[in-house]
């Protein structure tokens, strides 16, 4: 059914800058018919933010590491701290309009833009993975829209979701207590991943990458081989 998706997918309009055009080109390439997830580069990432509302809060930092074919490449990582981040932390965020902040600290904008441009080149067309990734992805997407004027179109994979798939046959029926079992801390315990360096973006991204390969290993044993099976 992927051809239907392809036809109906609305292609985002990107500014004419080199980095966006290069990024967009990656998604235009014809994909192999049944891509195996092992053949696909994935970027496991985590962000630190000023709060939990993607519409008002700001990115403070991002840490990311790449995996492919069940291998984590320590040399292929990304880490950045957004320069204006510290300034947002102590302000009454509700009372200051977002654009106001951006204008006020416009001096910092080139720095943050540079980070995002680098990040775009790092992400390529990889699958973005994270624990409860929806939030991080929304934060990132907003940042890209606001600062670089275009959205991300990477596919997204949530490790919490994968963990649930392995242990909870009936999705969407978790009590709050059960939901707690799928926190990163609890899952690290379950999968014997020693927890250190938590609560830095890079530290959490690394833990998540270890969790990811272990979850993928188990899913693979259950017959999940292709990207489609995985992103189901």
């Amino acid at each position, binding site marked *: 059914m992927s051809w239907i998706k392809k036809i109906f997918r609305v292609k985002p309009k990107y500014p004419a800058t080199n980095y966006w055009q290069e990024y967009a080109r990656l998604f235009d390439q014809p994909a192999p018919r049944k891509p195996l997830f092992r053949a696909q580069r994935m970027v496991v990432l985590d962000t630190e933010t000023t709060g939990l509302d993607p519409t008002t809060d700001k990115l403070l930092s991002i*840490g990311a*590491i790449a995996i492919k074919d*069940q*291998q984590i490449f*320590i*040399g292929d*990582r990304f*880490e950045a701290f957004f320069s204006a981040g510290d300034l947002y932390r102590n302000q009454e965020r509700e009372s200051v309009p977002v654009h106001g902040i951006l204008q006020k600290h416009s001096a910092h904008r080139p720095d943050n833009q540079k980070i995002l441009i680098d990040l775009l080149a790092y992400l390529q067309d990889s699958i973005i993975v994270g624990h409860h990734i929806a939030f991080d992805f929304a934060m990132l997407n907003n940042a890209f829209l606001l600062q670089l004027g275009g959205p991300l179109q990477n596919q997204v994979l949530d490790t919490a979701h994968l963990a649930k798939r392995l242990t909870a046959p009936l999705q969407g029926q978790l009590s709050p207590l059960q939901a707690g079992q799928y926190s990163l801390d609890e899952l690290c315990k379950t999968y014997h991943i020693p927890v250190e360096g938590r609560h830095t973006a890079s530290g959490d991204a690394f833990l998540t990458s270890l969790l990811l390969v*272990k979850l993928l290993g188990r899913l693979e044993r259950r017959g999940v081989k292709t990207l489609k099976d995985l992103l189901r």
Partner: protein
Amino acid sequence: MNVIPDRVYRFLQAYPPFSMLDKAMLEKIAGDTVIKYLQTGEFVFTEGESPQEYIYVVREGAIELLKKDENLLVEVCDEGDLFGLRPLLAKQPYVLSAKAAEECLLYAIKVDDLQELIETQPKVGYYLAQNFAFGISDKYSKLFKGKLFLDKDPALLLQTSLFEIQSVNHSKSPVCCAPTATIQEAARIMQQKHVGSILITDEQLHPIGILTDRDLRNRVVTGEVSRRQPVSDIMTHPVITIQPDCSVAEVQIAMMKNGIHHLCITQDGTPHTPVTGILSEHDLLVLQGNNPAILIREMKRSSSAEELAVIRTKAEGLLQQYLEREVAMDFIATVMTEINDALIIRVIEIALEELTTPLPQIKWSWLGLGSEGRGEQLLRTDQDNALVFEDVPKAELENTRSQFLAFAQKVTYHLNTCGFVYCPGEMMASNPKWCLSLQEWKNQFSDWILTPTNQNIMHCNIFFDFRSLYGEEEFSNQLGEHIFDTIDQKGIFLSLLAKNALQNPPPLTFFRNFMVEKNGEHKDAFNIKSRAMMPLTDAARLLILGHQVTGVNNTFKRFEKLAELEPKHRELFEQAADAYEILIRYRALQGLKNNNSGKFLLMEEMTKMQRLNLRNTFRPINDLQDIIKIRYQVSFFG
């Protein structure tokens, strides 16, 4: 450093050969590592496959190395083990297959990065050659024995020094000789001046080289060089020099950095001015306040068991320093034994003063048993002691005994106060069974030897290691002779003792895991005393009894003596002595850390390096037990 490579860095840092690298090198390797995930049954590489660009370290899980179409299990690698080194050695296909025995995470390290290290870091190359190129069967690697505690941060050691910036007193006038002097002449000067090292200088007294006890031991005594050769043939040069106003910290750093034990002091700190002094590691230890001689003097002056307990605790600080600095075990054991002996003697004196009716006017002796008897008690463990008194007419015997028992009760009470707690098995002089006249003791030993039940053999193991600590020393000699005479009458006795010594097999399972306690309070802990030390202690005692040697009680000295007596097995006995030293060291550190007897080790608290080294100490046990089996034909006794 980014937290991600830092995690890899900190893991690798604990394992050889990565533990030998400096920070920048290891950071580079960590930053380049690939973490590989494998499911059970997956292969990393297979026999005959051409070499990959990585070598592997097990981060989690276990890898089986297999040969001949996976039918033959050669080795199981677990956490921290290195495998797949073939690409490093030669561009040849793998000779083994590597298969995940369980879910695994591997650190894959680029061969290119390592290749460079092997060329620039001889230590790394040597380690890999020792441990891999010649197979795992390379036993008893000399280079790494005793280095159990290398993973301690040297910076931490420095911080613990008491007088870090204190200026070093080096008033000692240096002992020197010319480079043309023969080794024998130099050794004679060293002997006359009672020094452990001699400086070789030119005519202006500028230092050229240094010769130490260790060089003499290692190179001359072994026959490698002749004692008629000039000292310049074996001296270490150039000499590391330092200026006269150096601090303890500077000296320590210089010694540590250069891996040496002696520093030469010259007028301006360079080798181009005359020598003014020499400093040894030992001088430094003495400088650092916790001087054993001072502790012993304090003990002699103290007036209560409580005071003694405080001083004995200070001695523990001293012990800790010695252990951390890897001072020779021979020296540590001697010092701690001196301290323990001084304490026991003082306790006995205090108890004597407290007696309202003095002891009978006859000769007697206080005997230390077990580890105290062997002179290898570093920590305060259970007290094991006994008392022997001169033979008295039968009518007076019980009265005499009760007087000594009352006295012994005071002594054991005070020892308990000092931290040597009561023996749960009542192996104490305050027990009427172990407060005997000389004749009674002889009868007792005869009984044990002539009727060697299991219980009696166990008693022999404890009581044979006796040592006179106070009073009439002659009694212990007489008892020793009596034991040998009786053993001669009962030829089968040593065989039974041998059978007992074989009760504790080497403490490894088939997969080279430690045998841990199956149940009880210490479930899953490793009992270092009964599983690793006792087999060695028992073997040493038995073999030395076989040679009718008295007066050598210390287990590692027994092995050294055996090495001398049986040149055929010299290497094995030396290894056993080394192994025992490492074990005793390890137990002491464990005990100090947890403030207990150090008997039980928790596997998860140990680093890979420690586990590896500990595992190496088990190797001689098997060979020793084979010797015992053959020598005493133990198999005949079922």
